């Protein structure tokens, strides 16, 4: 019985897509909270950030003197930036079925808070918060960083 169920599952592969995805393809997460001046820099073009907007690998988020932004990634990792801050999503890999994950955030300056998601469980060494003079690795946790640029 169990075997036959699995045979059926195998037969169904041709008609079931690998991901029944409705969100924007390739997105790493979504901006959930924005206040004040915030821009997203993508391919060297800065555009104002809006709540609900998708975030992709290689995007930079930059806040102004009154700006704040909060993002929830596809693996439930959450990140927020305070004012006068800048961070780039250098890497986002979330492939749980292949047991692969990686999240690298480069914090150029300012204030950032981070709460671990599934990637930190999937690939504990794959999460790195990089600043100009330190690399922070995490084991399932909440962190806050302040970076004063040179």
């Amino acid at each position: 019985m169990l075997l036959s169920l699995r045979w059926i599952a195998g037969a169904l592969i041709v008609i079931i897509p690998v991901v029944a995805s409705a969100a924007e393809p390739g997105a790493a997460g979504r901006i959930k909270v924005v206040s004040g001046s915030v821009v997203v820099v993508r391919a060297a073009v800065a555009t104002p950030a809006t709540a609900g907007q998708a975030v992709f690998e290689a995007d930079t988020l930059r806040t102004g003197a009154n700006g704040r932004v909060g993002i929830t990634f596809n693996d439930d990792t959450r990140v927020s930036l305070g004012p006068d801050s800048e961070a780039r999503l250098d890497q986002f890999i979330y492939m749980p079925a292949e047991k692969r994950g990686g999240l690298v955030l480069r914090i150029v300056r300012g204030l950032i808070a981070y709460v671990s998601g599934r990637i930190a469980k999937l690939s504990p060494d794959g999460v790195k918060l990089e600043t100009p003079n330190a690399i922070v690795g995490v084991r399932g946790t909440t962190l806050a960083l302040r970076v004063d640029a040179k």
Partner: protein
Amino acid sequence: MSRDPRLVVLLVTTACAGLCACGHPRVQPPQRQAGTLVVLLPDADDGTVGRAFVSTTSGMAELASARASTSVVGNGAAGTVAPLSEAEVQTLFGSALTTMPRHAHQFTLYFQFESDELTAESRALVPQVVQAVKDYPFPDVEVIGHTDTTGSAASNVELGMRRATLVRRLLLDAGLDGSIVDATSHGEADLLVATSDETMEPRNRRVEISVR
């Protein structure tokens, strides 16, 4: 007690005076060194404290208790690990911490034995999921299919996907907008209960829903 010296260190600027090549004395503007302050915080939802490792070119510091912090100035090593007070955390990081999106709401659903039917308890969660979505701005719902380790890894990815797709359909039938609901499969790679390969384990045959 006096102010934490590490916070002061972080703000220190080192003034550098120099001479330009042609010999005219010139005062350079103060050169600020790069500074990083890291603090480990208890999880806002359940109070658990994880660990963090702060690596520099000259070594590593470990943070492993609530509000443990360290600073790195310029190319130096991570400074002494010491706790910040709750008030210091709020003063320094309040603007970022209050902007953190709400944590994801997780649901776990189970199927009847060798069936595509949810258990009665799990079916009753569907309206709760629909309700939870209303708590989130610009919500996303991820439906993740999981299996036990019986069968090949590849066939279990397919089986997990099939179950996630079924649950996604239930959520859409219950009123959720399809554009915010994704179905994915972790197959047998993300066990709730650790087992060896080829082990039947009902608790691993599940669908997780993450509302965020």
